[in-house]
């Protein structure tokens, strides 16, 4: 465990050099580059508490995505120890905790129904958050205030106001926040960004992002159903408006319900629009204009658009389009058009108007360099050890999520909007500005 109480480090007066675990982690990250040091140090180095040098983690959300993270994290046995898992669904949290304990051959991992109890554990360094979007900000801010570093699934937050609040808290408490936009840790996207920024495509003309549409139609009406045993429905809803439980309105499908998420605009847009932001060097800014049209279901449980067509325009005049493409299925792509042709990069395939462009893109030694990461988890762990900012830092995450959110607002209003990325407000559209935040259901509050 890295940190015990606000503003303090664990000091070990019984050791000659009063070595703290945080200091050790910082030093060992440098040392391990040259030395194959043992992972577990003798307890005498730390005094009686004998902490491991592993990063201790808690997991909030043990659903589909959370389980995928768990699959990976359990492979980091020398690096990570998961000590707690939280989910409002008893079966999910207990299944996950049992699996973790089975993998570790111990009983150290405990299940939690309330994320606040997990966040308050003083022996946990980092929290991985993969809850429905309406929970992200509150899960994360509570973790940050408990001195946890966090890995948080995309989109960063449900609203623009939540995103700015989260950035503020992360900076105030000096916490590492890695956003789940893992494309930043894939070589092909890194190469693409350096290539575009170096002028490899000539003058950049426009960007096209194609995302899949996977809203399932579940009927024009729905029936409230009894809450399944073991599911804390009130806690699942958390800060989002109350509604009765129904099977299709819970777990994975939350992303198609506007009270809980913003559909594929934020779910898939968070990846491909993030590439546009990165290539345009807009990690601390954003577009200045947005116009969108979406097909919103006029009845039924799902309320986010099934078809998306949004145009973002940046101050340099470059437009970025985000459109539903039924042919791309789950493989979103970001296609960059320039004077020399186009490059189309997705996470499972890539193509170009001319194969030569792909070869040039993958060649080393480009003129413009951007930070690189070979693995999103490793990058997170390294940032924790070195107290540096990760590849998908919280400000970057907030800016990309804001692009998604202003796109969603533009679609909801069906008109062109001007956006001031410095003030983070719409220019001359009071109604749009009113959609930058959402009041929370009691007792939850963004304070």
């Amino acid at each position, binding site marked *: 465990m890295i940190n015990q109480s606000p503003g303090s480090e664990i000091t070990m007066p019984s050791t000659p050099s009063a070595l703290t675990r945080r200091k050790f982690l910082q030093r060992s990250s440098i040392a391990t580059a040259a030395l194959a040091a043992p992972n577990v140090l003798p307890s005498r180095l730390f005094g009686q508490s004998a902490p491991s040098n592993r990063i201790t983690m808690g997991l909030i959300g043990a659903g589909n995505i959370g389980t995928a993270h768990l699959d990976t994290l359990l492979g980091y046995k020398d690096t990570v120890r998961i000590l707690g898992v939280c989910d409002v669904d008893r079966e999910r949290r207990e299944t996950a905790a049992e699996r973790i304990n089975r993998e570790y051959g111990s009983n150290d991992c405990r299940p939690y129904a309330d994320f606040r109890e997990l966040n308050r554990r003083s022996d946990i360094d980092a929290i991985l958050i993969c809850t429905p979007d309406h929970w992200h900000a509150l899960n994360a801010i509570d973790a940050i205030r408990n001195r946890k570093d966090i890995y948080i699934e995309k989109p960063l937050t449900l609203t623009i*106001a939540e995103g700015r609040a989260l950035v503020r808290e992360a900076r105030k408490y000096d916490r590492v926040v890695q956003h789940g936009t893992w494309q930043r840790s894939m070589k092909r996207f890194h190469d693409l960004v350096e290539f575009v920024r170096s002028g490899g495509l000539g003058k950049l003309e426009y960007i096209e992002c194609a995302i899949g549409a996977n809203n399932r139609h579940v009927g*024009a*009406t*729905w*029936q*409230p159903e009894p809450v399944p045993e073991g599911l804390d429905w009130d806690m699942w809803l958390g800060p989002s*408006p*109350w*509604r*009765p439980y*129904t099977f299709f309105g819970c777990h994975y499908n939350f992303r198609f319900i506007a009270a809980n998420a913003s559909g594929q605009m934020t779910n898939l847009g968070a990846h491909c629009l993030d590439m546009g932001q990165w290539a345009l060097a807009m990690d601390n800014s954003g577009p200045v204009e947005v116009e969108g049209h979406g097909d*919103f279901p*006029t*009845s*039924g*449980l799902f309320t986010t658009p099934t078809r998306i067509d949004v145009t973002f325009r940046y101050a340099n005049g470059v437009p970025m389009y985000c459109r539903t493409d039924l042919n791309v299925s789950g493989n979103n792509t970001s296609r960059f058009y320039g004077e020399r042709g186009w490059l189309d990069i997705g996470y499972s395939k890539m193509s170009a108007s001319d194969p030569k462009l792909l070869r040039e893109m993958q060649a080393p030694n480009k003129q413009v360099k951007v930070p690189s990461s070979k693995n999103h988890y490793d990058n997170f762990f390294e940032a924790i050890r070195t107290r540096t900012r990760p590849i998908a830092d919280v400000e970057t995450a907030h800016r990309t999520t804001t692009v998604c959110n202003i796109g969603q607002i533009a679609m*909801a*209003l*069906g008109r062109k909007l001007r956006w001031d990325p410095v003030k983070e407000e719409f220019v001359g559209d*009071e*109604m749009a500005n*009113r*959609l930058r*935040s959402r*009041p*929370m*259901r*009691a*007792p*939850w*509050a*963004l*304070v």
Partner: protein
Amino acid sequence: MGPERSVRGSSYLNRTAETTAPWKLCAELEYGGDRTFASTVEQEVVQTPPPEWAKVEAKILATLALPGCTEAGRAFLCKTLALVGSARSVPALAALVRETKTADAARTALEIIPGPEASAALRDALASLGGKAKAGLIGSIAARRDSAARPALAALKDNPAEPAVVRETAARALQCLATS
């Protein structure tokens, strides 16, 4: 179309409001039921230019005042009031925010509607609500950065008779106000 009703004494509505279908149906909205009419209303609201907001605001308020307005209907109408509402909406919302059962819906609009009237309505409701509902109310006050609420929040923070959720939320709200 049913008879128009004033919203808790607002004569303004009697002059301007209409509650024709699909508006009237919004008061009958049920969770899981058909909501096509609500989508139609929502489109009308978002496409209304600012000079016309007062008219559509009056329609929403008139619908909200219909007898037997459902919980789902109230939540939907308050959400639309958040888009176009003004001080004219505050009397109706002020009455709703003082009741635990309707406070969340009312805050959906009151937290967003600009102006001192909405801030005052939220502050005044502190005396009416308790427990979780009061904590939510404090969150709305903090979201508006209402510095006039500082004394009331300070008193709540230090009041041992209040439950922890209220005291803690009040303490954090005061921090928000101090840094804004």
